[in-house]
């Protein structure tokens, strides 16, 4: 790690301008600093200035999260803890609080922000280890392919097999979230267009342009929504498979569903086939629900050591559906 300066701009616009300041070799935005610190300690990046946006708020934004005019708005700097403890969100979109509250540890949730969570780099142990010159670091090999891939992706053509690490992305996606930006011509980007697969560029995971800064995120209310993560450890661990679900119900019958899986692919993974299969399913009908969810891992191409995720994913989806409909899963019953 080299010495670096810390800049404290008072607006996102100023922060954006700083990222384009050619005086610096590498300017990096810092919000919670969680992923940034890992990168610095791992010797993966060597910035000469950190642009601290942790306390920046958009003009007029008061609370970290809020609902007005039927739209949920989450400030970029809202912490996962703030999202998890918002009673308003818990009613309007339980999936958000569940996803936030399930992540990491209380200490991390107090620091980590929603924008940082969306834009964090993958946790792949080859990427994080400076001594492996993997594709993401400009190398020519994905070491997971013939190496240790128990936590890697079961979907996607490669050539890199990371799993997308964010809990918030799938949770926001089922609410058709929009990412609001400053620093370029475009003012917003649907969250569904934020990420790209490794075959569209392996050195980054998102489609933000240089100088673009996330200011806030909006999504629709989804009172029947839930997040379910399967984790090896129940404290401070990354999911090995997870699902975010938002449904609309007529009585106990699902009239429409949004289903996004996490920790199984290089991007948050839409499951349109499950969404279609869930339509018309009575959530009280265990057999029908299982059948609809069983196809969640259709098309998966597990690697040598991660075939178990194929079995887990339908479980995560089904339990998220049950939760979204206010029903207990096996764990609670």
């Amino acid at each position, binding site marked *: 790690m080299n010495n670096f300066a810390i800049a404290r701009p008072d607006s996102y616009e100023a922060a954006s301008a700083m990222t384009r300041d050619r005086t610096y070799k590498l300017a990096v935005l810092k919000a919670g600093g969680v992923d940034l610190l890992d990168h610095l300690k791992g010797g993966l990046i060597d910035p000469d200035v950190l642009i601290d946006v942790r306390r920046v708020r958009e003009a007029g934004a008061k609370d970290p999260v809020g609902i007005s005019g039927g739209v949920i708005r989450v400030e970029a700097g809202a912490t996962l803890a703030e999202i998890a403890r918002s009673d308003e969100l818990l009613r309007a979109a339980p999936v958000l609080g569940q996803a936030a509250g399930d992540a990491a540890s209380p200490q991390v949730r107090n620091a980590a922000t929603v924008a940082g969570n969306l834009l964090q780099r993958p946790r792949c*142990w080859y990427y994080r*280890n400076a001594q*492996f010159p993997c594709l993401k670091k400009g190398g020519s090999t994905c070491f997971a392919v013939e*190496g240790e891939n128990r936590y890697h992706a079961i979907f996607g053509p490669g050539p890199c097999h990371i799993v997308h690490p964010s809990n918030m992305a799938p949770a926001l996606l089922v609410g058709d979230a929009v990412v609001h930006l400053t620093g370029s011509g475009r003012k917003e980007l649907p969250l569904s267009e934020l990420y790209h697969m490794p075959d569209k560029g392996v050195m980054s995971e998102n489609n933000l342009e240089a100088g673009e800064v996330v200011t806030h995120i909006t999504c629709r209310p989804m009172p029947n929504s839930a997040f379910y993560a*399967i984790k090896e450890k129940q404290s401070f661990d990354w999911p090995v498979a997870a699902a975010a679900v938002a449904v609309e119900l007529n009585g106990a019958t699902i009239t429409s569903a949004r289903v996004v899986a996490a920790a199984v692919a290089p991007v948050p993974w839409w499951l349109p086939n499950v969404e279609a299969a869930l339509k018309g399913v009575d959530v009280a009908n265990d057999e029908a629900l299982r059948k609809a969810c069983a196809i969640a891992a259709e098309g998966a191409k597990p690697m040598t050591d991660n*075939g178990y995720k194929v079995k887990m994913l339908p*479980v995560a989806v089904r339990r998220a559906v049950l939760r979204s409909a206010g029903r207990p899963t*096996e764990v609670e019953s």
Partner: protein
Amino acid sequence: MKADTAPAIPAGPFAIPTDMPTLNRPMNLGQSIDDNTSRLDGIAKITGAARYSSDMILPNSLYARFVRCPFGAANLESFDDTEALKVDGVIEIDIQPKECQYDGQPVGHVAATSPMAVDRAMRALNLKWKKLPVKTQITDTVKQEVPQGEVSGADVTFAAVYSTPVQTHSSLETHGGVVDHRGDKATVYASTQGTSSVRDGFGDALGLKQSDFEVVCEYVGGGFGSKLGGPGKELMLAAKLSQKFKRPAYVMCNRWEEHLDTGNRPSSMTSVKLGLKKDGSVVGGEIRTWGGTGVGRGGGGVAIPSGRYDFQGVDKKHNDVSFNGGGPRPFRAPGHPQAVFAEELMLDEAAALIGMDPLTIRRKLLKDDVYREMMEMGARLIGWNERKPTGSQKTAMRIGYGIGTGGWGSASPGGSAEVVIHQDGSVESRTGTQDIGTGQRTSMGICTASAIGIPLSLVTVQIGRSTLPPGPGSGGSVTSPTTAPTMMAAAEAAKKKLLEHVARQANEKAEDLSVKDGQVLRRGEKFLSWKDACSKLTAEGVTGSASTGEGGRGASQGVQFMKVVVDCETGIVHPRHVIAIQSCGRVICRKTAESQIIGGVIQGISYGMFENKILDRNTGAMVNPNLEWYKVLGPNDMPHIEPVLWWHGQTGVKALGEPPNIPTAGALACAVYNAVGSPVRHLPLTPDKVLAALEGAAS
């Protein structure tokens, strides 16, 4: 497989309260000198006031780290330190190219005026490594094969292979320390389990007589065996640099290095063939074990058969197997947890073959009645009668019960202590042992206070300095068994001197005087307050000293019962309840003793469920040298743990450090087997293996 039926549990020899409070229940079957004293240094530790060796950032210090091989096997063909030497603050770079045999093997070091400068220089070294082929596990050398053939004379023959991974100690405070060499004197701040052995281990490395340097280790952030013995390579480097440059030298591993090169519990593979009669007796078989010792030579022993069960005619063979990984170091009951995992699960599996309950076969095979009695009690406390036959549950969430046993024997090495009674009534207990987390300060204080007959608040405890009367190294669970009687004898000696002094001054007979509850009594009647009695001393007070020689080998027994819930859709194991019965002898402080047991169980569950040093199969580099992917259990994974201190009439202090870590992983594996219906024979019990076992059970 026949359905095993749970036997009735007979009334045990002990009355067990039916309403068991969950915390601090009155379940202490033994005698404790003190019940509920919290650690004397607890506040200092949680507020950060306690200064560990890693906190010793001294003025003008230099910092050093080892340059390490980044692969399992590689040849350092060249390096160019031109740029590295230009880095501001770099003091010394010393690299010796050589062929390395494990990830993390040192080839030299970089010293600089700040950790950042060390880091920058490291990255500028331009090392050219040539990778070599690697072996990363036992099975790269030894084929995993289930033994074939029947055992002659047996009704059934059971055969299987079990394995356990490499476990790293993962001490929160890493290895190393600080050496402050001032020319004619030196102070060594060591993170160690042996303050005296660090002093002795320096030899001539400091260029000083032992009387001219002091080893200080007031607090240790965990060791679990890995910080036993001499100074270690980190402190030796610090000594060399500090002596050479005449300024303090700070050499502590970072988390990465800690996983790679500070020792581990070696992996193991155990292949068993067991011949049984239908009545559960064992009539023969063979047990072969392999210990994965990395580049280490020796230390991979697997303590199976444990000797607790009657295995007639079972042969045992062991081999250590090398591969490209760091070598082992002692780890909380070396060779035992890996053995108990295989032995207990093997017993349950073999019992199922003859339709016998796990409790019944243990009753049959246990050689020592103590274990049998512990087992009856544990069965009652965990609710063994609720246990369903293995494989009989069909629901998603299945409950399982398992049993593990543990035995331990170690000999006290002897040690010295002194107790000083001052003129103002304050008392100082001094011994050069260290506290690796067992509560030594607290128990030494309690020993002193109780032996004299004064409140604990009057006692100050000094430990962790080589200039104190030498205490034992903290290994083999002998610290308290050694220090407690020694400190008590020293306290008795100091009290005797005080009373003799008081008697002389007051024209009394010393044998008529005694101390109780902070009062000096004369023939049992109140005579003087403690303070008044001490005020009669001269300025130097009185000092009582004691030394104990090597003691006999003590035996310690333990039985644990585990209740788990297994989510059979996800394969996630949720430990719910543990009964941990441990023979304890005379307990000094019940709270710290129970805390030791709880800690042992926690580490055992973590070993059974998560811990795994994973080496990349192609490069031999560890892929999880952190606490993110080297998983250690957290609060949400902890069951309710009930320690039961089992007193068997002994008056001595018994081992409690290692023993409670022995049975846990075995009990856990048995509980999962009971719930799932098919065994997971390879630790850790991760969901992928549980799901695979479920498929096995279904087919």
